[in-house]
């Protein structure tokens, strides 16, 4: 479920050497990188041909033969015959034109769509602020609490003149962002405690943490989601209920906590022993030592793998499809349930995939850049 590889060794970056003057210029470059031998030339030609064919095929399908909109009859049913007549030679983007608001915001009241839209913007802003190094200190905590509160107010409403929207009607991209972000916000403190517990000298605490981490990492996320869906209700006293989305959120937090704990533990282990010993020598208590000396250093080194882990969760939230929660992917699938639009799955998946791609690509580029940056001092 998760694609987190803990402790992936850093790839040593190749140091740039300036080329001799005789080897500069496009022709020399091509000779060196594309046509360095007969085998290389053959491979280049074959690959080049395939790329051109694929790109042209895609352009034909996605742009030249594509249909961007279709008429809608008096009963509100779209006339998709023109799309069906393409027989797959062109994309029917009309499904996206027609359904994009449903895919993005689900069954949220139509005239209130500006609220989830604003929520998405707030989330993006929150990510950007968190990515800026000047905020890497305690100010992030109030920023997160403030933004998440604002998001809650916007989604639910009921105050400041906003009409109340029950949680059953939320859907689409905000659900994906909520599950991933709230998951991280709660799983992160949990994971720090578990990681510290796993390295603790106290056997009972250590055993608890090891059992928790290994148990969660040994089973697929989907089994936890099933548990949230059908078993949680049995765990609670009679008459007490937690809503379906919250149950899924709890499952994701427990899941994320175990994986993040391993990331944080790797950070704790990467600190030289001298740091611990120096803190002990100064007579700091365990919590002083951890809070002032160890965590600030350890967390800084694990930010890149932390972002990678977050990318994993961001994608994994799509699994709530299986227990019937209305996230981005579910909304996309539901959009093509309507018979007029059945059979245009590829277009919808491309659209939904692009949204995921934009988020994940930005985050992975950021994490790669950060990793290179943080490793600067190690390079000589």
């Amino acid at each position, binding site marked *: 479920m998760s694609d987190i590889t803990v402790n992936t060794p850093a790839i040593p970056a190749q140091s740039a050497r300036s080329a001799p003057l005789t080897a500069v210029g496009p022709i020399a470059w091509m000779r060196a990188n594309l046509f360095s031998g007969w085998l290389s030339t053959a491979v280049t030609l074959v690959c080049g041909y395939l790329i051109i064919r694929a790109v042209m095929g895609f352009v034909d399908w996605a742009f030249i033969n594509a249909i961007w909109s279709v008429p809608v009859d008096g009963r*509100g049913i779209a006339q*998709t015959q023109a799309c069906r007549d393409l027989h797959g030679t062109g994309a029917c983007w009309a499904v996206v034109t027609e359904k994009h608001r449903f895919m993005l915001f689900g*069954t*949220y*009241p*139509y005239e209130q769509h500006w609220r989830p839209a604003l929520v998405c913007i707030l989330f993006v802003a929150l990510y950007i602020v968190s990515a800026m190094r000047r905020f890497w200190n305690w100010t992030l905590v109030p920023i997160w609490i403030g933004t998440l509160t604002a998001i809650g107010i916007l989604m639910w409403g009921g105050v400041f003149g906003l009409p109340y929207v*029950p949680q*059953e*009607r939320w859907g689409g991209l905000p659900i994906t962002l909520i599950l991933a972000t709230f998951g991280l916000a709660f799983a992160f403190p949990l994971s720090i405690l578990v990681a510290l517990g796993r390295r*603790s*000298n106290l*056997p*009972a605490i*250590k*055993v608890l943490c090891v059992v928790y981490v290994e148990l969660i990492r040994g089973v697929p996320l989907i089994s936890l989601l099933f548990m949230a*869906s*059908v*078993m949680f*209700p*049995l765990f*609670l*006293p*009679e*008459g007490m*209920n937690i809503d*379906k989305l919250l149950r899924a959120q709890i499952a994701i937090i427990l899941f994320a906590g175990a994986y993040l704990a391993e990331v944080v533990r790797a950070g704790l282990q990467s600190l030289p022993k001298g740091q611990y010993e120096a803190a002990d020598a100064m007579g700091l208590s365990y919590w002083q030592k951890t809070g002032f000396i160890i965590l600030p250093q350890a967390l800084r080194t694990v930010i890149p793998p932390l972002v990678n882990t977050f990318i994993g969760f961001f994608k994994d939230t799509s699994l709530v499809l*299986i*227990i*019937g929660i209305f996230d981005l992917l579910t909304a996309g*699938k*539901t959009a*093509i*349930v309507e*018979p*007029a639009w*059945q*059979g245009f*799955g590829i277009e919808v998946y491309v659209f939904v995939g692009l949204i995921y791609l934009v988020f994940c690509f930005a985050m992975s580029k950021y994490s790669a850049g950060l990793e290179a940056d943080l490793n600067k001092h190690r390079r000589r």
Partner: protein
Amino acid sequence: MTSTSRFNFLRLAGAAAVTALLSGPAIAQQAAAPSGSTLDAIRARGTLICGVNTGLAGFAQPDSQGVWRGFDTDYCRAIAIALFNDASKVRFVPTTAQNRFTALQSGEVDVLSRNTTWTLSRDTSLGFDFPAINFYDGQGFMVKRSLGVNAARDLNGATICVQPGTTTEQNLTDWARANRVQFQPVVIERLEEVVSAYVAGRCDAYTTDVSGLAATRSAQPRPADHVILPDVISKEPLGPLVRHGDQRFADLVRWVHFGLIAAEEFGITAANVEEAARSDARPEVQRMLGRNGDLGQMLGVDPAWMARIIRSLGNYGEIYARNLEPIGIPRGRNALWTTAGGLQYAPPFR
């Protein structure tokens, strides 16, 4: 592991012993938790929570404004009107075939109105009660017309799409065994998914309740391309269900259903219910509409409960005509016993 952090089992054992001491009171507290009746809980909450299908045309489907429409959802509204005199005092919780029973068992929903078949094991070992049968259904098959199949027996060797976790797939295997029909199953969890597999031609036939087949068929761009085979291989009495042991609430659900049937028997409709409440001289009608007697009080609701339900939703026939006839499900055996020899029949309002 360094020597200082080596396990000390003595310490561990001590910790466990203290834990046991500390957690004792927590459990004692739990055992004393009271359990109230569903009816009281609903009244205290002010809304009815109704488990419905995630989207099945004619039974429960959100329209383009996100309002739930359908036969099953109208039953939820009817119960809400009986309790609160307000059709909007109901929350619909979409449930999948998988989590519907847990949702009801756990109290996440008060009543499940989700075309669910009444079976012995659901009535007993799952701990439910089925107050009424509001729709008599049966399992059938749908095939593409181009396949040229006229009877279910011709399906020998076919690939059949079926949704798991329902009575449907067990009926299918029973039927196949009894008729010596070999088939290749394609078992897909989600309704949309299984329908799209059938439409895409992954399967030769799709099997589910005939009402579901009709709903799916009518939703296709060209319904005439699909044929529902005449064979019906099972009995599927569908109806709302509640938790076992909740007799007062079960009574209410049951009599809401009978009220809707009786209203049709008496010819009382949304249009004429006001008139009937004032001037209809038949004693049973007067009792049912709350002009006479205290039937409402016996159920624990307002005397005019039935009149209000009919005023806003109509009688059984009207609900049926509004939701199910447009998608091509004729009344069939769900017609009234008294007038058309069907199976729907209400005990006396007395």
